[in-house]
């Protein structure tokens, strides 16, 4: 008895010593909302499905013994894709993994890849009679008009949906936080620059556009056709040229600062510039813009992510801006200023971390709407390459075959459930972050 009491006492002491951060309260508040907690768990499950899609739905076995040797074909596939290790000769060009003479084999739960075409079962429903060797090979959610397994397609499309949601919101968050904090923290009356630097800087912006974009236009376009990685590399080179030229402007402006008029320092209206930019982006009908860009370019998943991200950052930027407009007048920022810390340090170490939490709400809802946008695009037949199976693309097939209800119900439910989960998390965050609901 005594020991137990001691223990609880100790626990209390430990709990009291633990510094209660803002995050602690947010988490505690979030956990009170059972629905949101379950939604978060369900999202973890979706992420699990997305990561291990190859092991859940694949034509190849996970483990198999073939001609007295044990193989892990799905791992070999990864080795082949990432490290270029070739497949063993006896496993190359196999027309049908199902009909191989195995000693034994462990197949994934759904033994079909999304691209597998089952000619014996074209457009069969889940309850229809299916021409399969045993229940193990049944198409549980039916097949599409080419005989591709719907369940396998849905599982692999989870990857696409989640990655579109997360990557596009990642892009949006980077842009939004960057611009929003510039506008909110600096406002219109903090950053000052000499007229010489502004004039030279503007000049160098034009030159930077010329050397980084105009001259390298075809290099950039061709690298995009080659691979995303080389495009990102080329983009970095362009960015380096651009920044280099701006730095040059700063260096060149130095001697001019001695001249009286040129040397005078004027305010840079950061807030005004960013607010105008936000207004422009908000005013353009965004789905219109996305469809227009996606329709012009070659279909690519990366482009869809980038475009959704580039049009979706305004909400985050507004949040951050409003938060920082409030925070920058608080005393601890003033204290940091009077200690002589540079703006950069205050902004990154003190101001932004405290403004970041409301952004989570925006990101949660943003992921939901990005997934919705992507599925709308693939429903319209835009965006992703035509052979890629996505929730939207399966759903769009149901328009061609109105009697195939499974082509509409299942992918639609997948979109609905995923969108709802992220919306629930967003709602949960609103309540967790709103001080009015704190008890």
């Amino acid at each position, binding site marked *: 008895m005594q020991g137990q009491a001691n223990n609880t006492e100790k626990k209390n002491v430990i709990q009291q010593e633990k510094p209660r951060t803002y995050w602690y309260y947010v988490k505690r508040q979030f956990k009170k909302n059972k629905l949101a907690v379950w939604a978060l768990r369900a999202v973890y499950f979706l992420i699990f499905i997305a990561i291990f899609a190859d092991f859940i739905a694949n034509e190849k076995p996970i483990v198999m013994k073939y001609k007295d040797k044990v193989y892990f074909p799905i791992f070999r596939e990864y080795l082949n894709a990432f490290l270029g290790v070739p497949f063993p000769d006896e496993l190359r060009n196999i027309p049908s993994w199902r009909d191989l003479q195995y000693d034994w084999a462990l197949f994934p739960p759904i033994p079909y890849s999304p691209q597998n075409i089952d000619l014996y079962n074209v457009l069969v429903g889940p309850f229809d009679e299916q021409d399969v060797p045993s229940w193990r090979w049944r198409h549980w959610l039916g097949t599409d008009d080419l005989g591709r397994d719907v369940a396998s397609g849905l599982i692999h499309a989870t990857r696409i949906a989640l990655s579109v949601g997360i990557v596009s919101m990642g892009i949006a968050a980077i842009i939004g936080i960057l611009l929003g904090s510039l506008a909110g923290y600096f406002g219109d009356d903090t950053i000052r620059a000499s007229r010489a630097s502004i004039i030279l800087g503007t000049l160098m912006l*034009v*030159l930077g*556009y*010329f*050397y980084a974009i*105009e*001259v390298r*236009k*075809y290099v950039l376009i061709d690298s995009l056709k080659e691979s995303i990685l080389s495009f990102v590399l080329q983009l970095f080179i362009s960015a380096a040229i651009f920044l280099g030229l701006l730095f040059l402007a700063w260096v060149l402006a130095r001697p001019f600062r001695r001249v009286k008029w040129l040397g005078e320092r004027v305010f840079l209206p950061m807030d005004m510039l960013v607010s*105008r930019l936000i*207004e*422009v982006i*908000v*005013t*353009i*009908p965004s*789905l*219109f813009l996305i*469809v*227009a*860009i996606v*329709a*012009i370019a070659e279909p690519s998943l990366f482009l869809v992510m980038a475009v959704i991200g580039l049009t979706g950052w305004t909400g985050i930027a507004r949040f951050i801006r409003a938060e920082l407009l409030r925070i920058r007048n608080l005393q601890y920022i003033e204290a940091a200023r009077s200690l002589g810390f540079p703006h950069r340090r205050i902004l990154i170490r003190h101001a932004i971390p405290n403004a970041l939490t409301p952004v989570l709400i925006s990101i949660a809802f943003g992921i*939901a709407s990005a997934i*919705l946008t992507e*599925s*709308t695009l693939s*429903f*319209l037949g835009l965006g992703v390459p035509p052979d890629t199976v996505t929730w939207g693309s399966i*759903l769009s097939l*149901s*328009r061609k075959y*109105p*009697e195939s*209800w499974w082509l*509409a*119900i299942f992918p*639609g439910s997948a*979109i*609905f459930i995923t*969108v*709802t989960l992220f*919306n629930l998390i967003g709602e949960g965050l609103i309540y967790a972050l709103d001080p009015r609901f704190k008890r």
Partner: protein
Amino acid sequence: MWKYIIKRILIFIPTLIIISLLTFWLSTNAPGDPVEQMLGGIMGSEGRTTDFMATEQAYMEQRKKLGLDLPLFYIALQPLSVPDTFYRIPRKKHQEVLRRLIAQLGNWEYIQAYYLKLKDVQRLLYGLPSQGPFRKYRGKAYELINELFLTYDTMKIGFYTTLLAMTADSFVYEFSKLSMDTNLVGNSERDKAAIEEFKKAVYELRAAYLDMINNPETWKNYIPTIHWYGTKNQYHRWISGFIVGDFGISYVDKRPVAEVIKDAVKWTALINLISVILIYLIAIQAGVYSAVKAGTFQDQVLTVTLYILYSLPNFWIATLLIMFFGGGAYLDWFPAFGVSSLPETAPLWQRIIDVAHHLILPVLALTYPSLAFLAKQMRGAMIQVLKEDYIRTAYAKGLPDKVVIWKHAFRNSLLPIITLFANVFPFMISGSFVIEYIFSIPGMGKESYEAIMSRNYPVVYTVVMLVSILTLVGYLVADILYALVDPRISYSKKK
């Protein structure tokens, strides 16, 4: 207040200019040549020189009519290697290939010589004989020439020009064989001259190509030049037309854009008007009811229902509605596509019923998400207001529930309704891509979707600009309404 409104309208102008620039920039980067789109593709391998010249002439005239022979913008920032008259080159594909050649070699004089020679060769091709054995070679030369017009890989150009020279030799060989074998028939003298001329041009093309690749001046690519074109440019032509209400001509059916939009906006406005009325009628009632009964069973059922409705993707629901009620394989209650199935001559009331019958499903699919969203917002705002002290005071005064709810609480929770009201204006003319696409409604959504897909830029520009203007107007109206509803909000600075 007036000062504020005027100030806001003045701020609109730069925003609209930026949007117009962005749309314009997007359209100039789109692949495809509008003129070719309107006139059909390029000429085949058959035909005579006069036909070829007529096709080129028609192309140039159409191009001039659409204003595409003008420079793009007031000002151009280009490398020294690109001449300031570059925009005059017809056919977008050729411009693209030449720009890429310039990017590799930088020596415009040589590239131009090569290009002009290539056009020469193309013209001369149609003077060549096409009967008998020549037919095959002419087809081959035609393919090679077209390939050359689209190739900027210098190695490949070398290869194709060599093949073209060989084809020209084949012509000479076939001709000499023919003139030995048979008695010369008909236009042999003319054919001979044409073949000789063609061969000469092809060899000159080959020489021009060698000159081009042997004299690169890549340094010219790194020197920026700025050229001022004045107001005679495509952007100026379009934007000044837009301001006076001349939206241009649709590339697809050659009708004025204003007419196209007038026909389409009719349906969108009708559907969206019905939808907006329904949204506000139902959502306000539902939201207020739910807030007043907060915490009860009815409220919970309503809240969950609204939440589910809000998260249901509307293109999915639209698909399901058509599938199950639109006479697919299941129930045949409603027509699935279009807006009307009766001829214009049918009696008016019959037509109204028919149209209503067609519109039930699309209006349903269009209404429920916004309805759910608005009701949710309404409930939230109302719950906040109902907690206020003045509501308790109103109850305590003995006012009837109805008066308290609708006169005291409701007026104070109008903000979300106004915020959403800002979106009504653009909504009225932009329509919904997906819903109109699914139900084949000839409204703005479908029209602009098709315009984007067929690169019908005059329509795209106009819709984007009109929607943007209405969005800005919506924001302004919302701000004014805020001030009207809530006297605490004031936009004039107090001193």
